[in-house]
């Protein structure tokens, strides 16, 4: 026996999730934030590039995964940067130490 009503219910929920009202709300929230901040696409792109460079100094990251979002909160907009970290890069002091160790090992 198939529970038709359950399937119908599921389908209805799915439809509601994908309904255009929610899409409208999301689009509006972004449109309004961008309107207010007057951020341009080129500015966002160069910010993206700069953040990549800065983070890459300290971490090895999946460059493709870096995402920048401007999100609405109660009374301010927040800039959210998300990225996958592969591993931390050794600090410059550590690097020197490592290099020194290698050099001494070679001598021996």
């Amino acid at each position, binding site marked *: 026996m198939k529970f038709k009503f359950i399937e119908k219910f599921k389908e209805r929920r799915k*439809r509601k999730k994908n309904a255009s009202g929610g899409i409208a709300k999301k689009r509006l929230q972004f449109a309004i934030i961008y309107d207010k901040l007057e951020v341009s696409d080129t500015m966002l792109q160069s910010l993206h590039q700069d953040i990549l460079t800065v983070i890459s100094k300290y971490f090895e990251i999946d460059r493709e995964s870096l995402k920048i979002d401007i999100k609405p909160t109660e009374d301010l907009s927040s800039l959210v940067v998300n990225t996958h970290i592969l591993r931390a890069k050794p600090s410059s002091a550590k690097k020197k130490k490592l290099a020194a160790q290698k050099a001494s090992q070679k001598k021996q």
Partner: protein
Amino acid sequence: MEGKVIVITSGKGGVGKTTATASIGAALALEDNRVVVMDMDIGLRNLDVVMGLENRIVFTVVDAVNGVCDIKQAAIKDRRIKDLFLIPASQSDNKDVLEAEGMIKLCGELRKQYDYIIIDCPAGIEKGFQNAVAAADEALVICTPEVSAVRDADRIIGLLYARSITPKLVLNRIVPQMVERGDMLSHDDVVEVLSIELIGLVPLDENVVVSTNTGVPAVLQKNSPAGEAFQRIAKRINGDVDLPIEVPKSGRGLWKKLARKIGMGRRGA
């Protein structure tokens, strides 16, 4: 006591400012207030036809500001509703003909003679808007549950804040069936996006078209859900701040269906 100047505005055109002005003005007059509604859409006047007073225009708001006539001559008395007056816009001038100072002076005079001065603001954010809001004490922002109208409302709200006016929102033309289906922004969505206080929810109502066709205010029509919603908004403006805001329902619920079957249903309640 001095009267209150309330501007009805929206940013976007065609969302129902003029209907709202006429309805709220009429409803406030029905609540025993002396009310004047003023059309500030210079060059594109319409409040006069919506109110059915287009044949009685002699002087306009431009004449009143420029001292061509006195206020009593410019204010047309509505014959159906006691203490309701209209100051029409001029059709031959354009929006640059007035200045904010003139409006402030005129509204100062009107405050002495009326309890409420309701101003129908033109669409846009240019000089017509600036003149219409120049003397306003309060503002209502009319918005429909559409992306374009909400975005423009946000812009207008920002401009009103810059003038130290905290506006309230009227969400107009709600289609409850579509909201329930998820295919229309709900009033909660709009309030959240605009972060603004709500003063009324108005359902889409065919009676409004009939009302503008005939020039009879929607609040005088029987069984008009929109007319009733505007009446409740007027009550809230008039001091009944605790009057709950009714959310338009589709009337498709089980009980409503049953009630309608046995002839107890109320249309659009």
